[in-house]
């Protein structure tokens, strides 16, 4: 399986090299001049992929040099990629996992409130627990806030 995969990527990298060489072949200005001479001589200029590859091979050394000169360009490309990334992240919608984390938080809070109202009801401090239980069913988020504030304000007052 991995052997097959290696073979495949080897083959792919060979094709990439060929495509690259074909690009170089078409790219090299020297090739343009050669084309011009061929055209003058009445010979059709090489259009086939393999001819471009050949032309590229002939110019490979020169092209390698050009690539090295491109290192500066590479640096600016990386900078620009960073800028695009920042911009993209700003616009990115809220991730599903962020929402899930929020839901979990709400669930945990709800459980706490349930436990608290249960213990309050058991101790007999709160006479009617329906007030804290009723809104929770309708709106968990709103119920959460009301429930906790009810606990802190009402609890100690009744005790004193």
């Amino acid at each position, binding site marked *: 399986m991995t052997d097959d995969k290696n073979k495949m990527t080897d083959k792919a990298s060979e094709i990439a090299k060929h*495509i690259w060489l074909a*690009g170089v072949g078409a790219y090299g200005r020297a090739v343009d001049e050669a084309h011009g001479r061929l055209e003058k001589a009445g010979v059709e200029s090489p259009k086939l992929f393999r001819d471009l590859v050949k032309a590229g091979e002939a110019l490979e050394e020169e092209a390698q040099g050009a690539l090295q000169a491109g290192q500066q360009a590479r640096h600016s490309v990386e900078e620009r990629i960073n800028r695009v990334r920042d911009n*993209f992240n700003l616009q990115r919608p809220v991730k599903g996992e962020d929402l899930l984390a929020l839901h979990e938080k709400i669930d945990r809070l709800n459980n706490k409130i349930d436990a608290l109202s249960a213990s309050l009801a058991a101790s007999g401090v709160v006479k009617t627990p329906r007030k804290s239980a009723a809104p929770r069913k309708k709106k968990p988020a709103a119920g959460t806030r009301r429930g906790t504030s009810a606990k802190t304000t009402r609890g100690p007052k009744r005790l004193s």
Partner: protein
Amino acid sequence: MKTRDRILITSLELFNTEGEATTTTLDIANVMEISPGNLYYHFKGKEQIISELFEQYETALGGTLTAPLERPLSESRGQVEDNWYYLYVVLEEMFQYRFLYYNLDNILQRYEGVRKGFQRLLQLKRAALYAICQTLLEQSVISAREQQLVGLVDNMTLTLTFWFNYEKLLHGRDQQQVTIHQGVLQLLTMIAPYLGNEQLTFYRDCESIYKRMLDDETRRRQR
């Protein structure tokens, strides 16, 4: 700024917004509020302006396109998204000289030098996209057979090259942000069938950003 540079910048702006074919050197001089003679002192005619603009463009885009050939943009799977951001960079660069693409055949027929240079850039686009796809394949981000891969690369090159033209014909708009974002989305749509689930998240984010951009644009128009 030197008059010579101002001429180039003004010409580029006019070509992009008004079209290359309908813009004359007289128009350029008028917009700059200089005499045609002054313009002629710097450039012998529109052809010279265009060939100089194209030279700038070839140097800039050529440099950008060799980046993924030299070294993969994403060294690890965690950086896969850098490849998509790179597509923005390429499209942004192309957008600056979009007049070429709006009137491509016509310009290539009239300017021999531009035609050769454009062919070189096209080959480089293809090679750059191939290098990206091949890296994605090596990192198992995409899975495709080699023949599919070559077809995919050609489709992407085609879309990349004619995207502005297509957008303008279809929507008649000339808005950088939306056009470029949709272009990236379109290119990703081609890769999407070969992507694993993990990378589809980025694709979906891209989709929702695009949707919001369109909503914003509609709202702007209604105002």
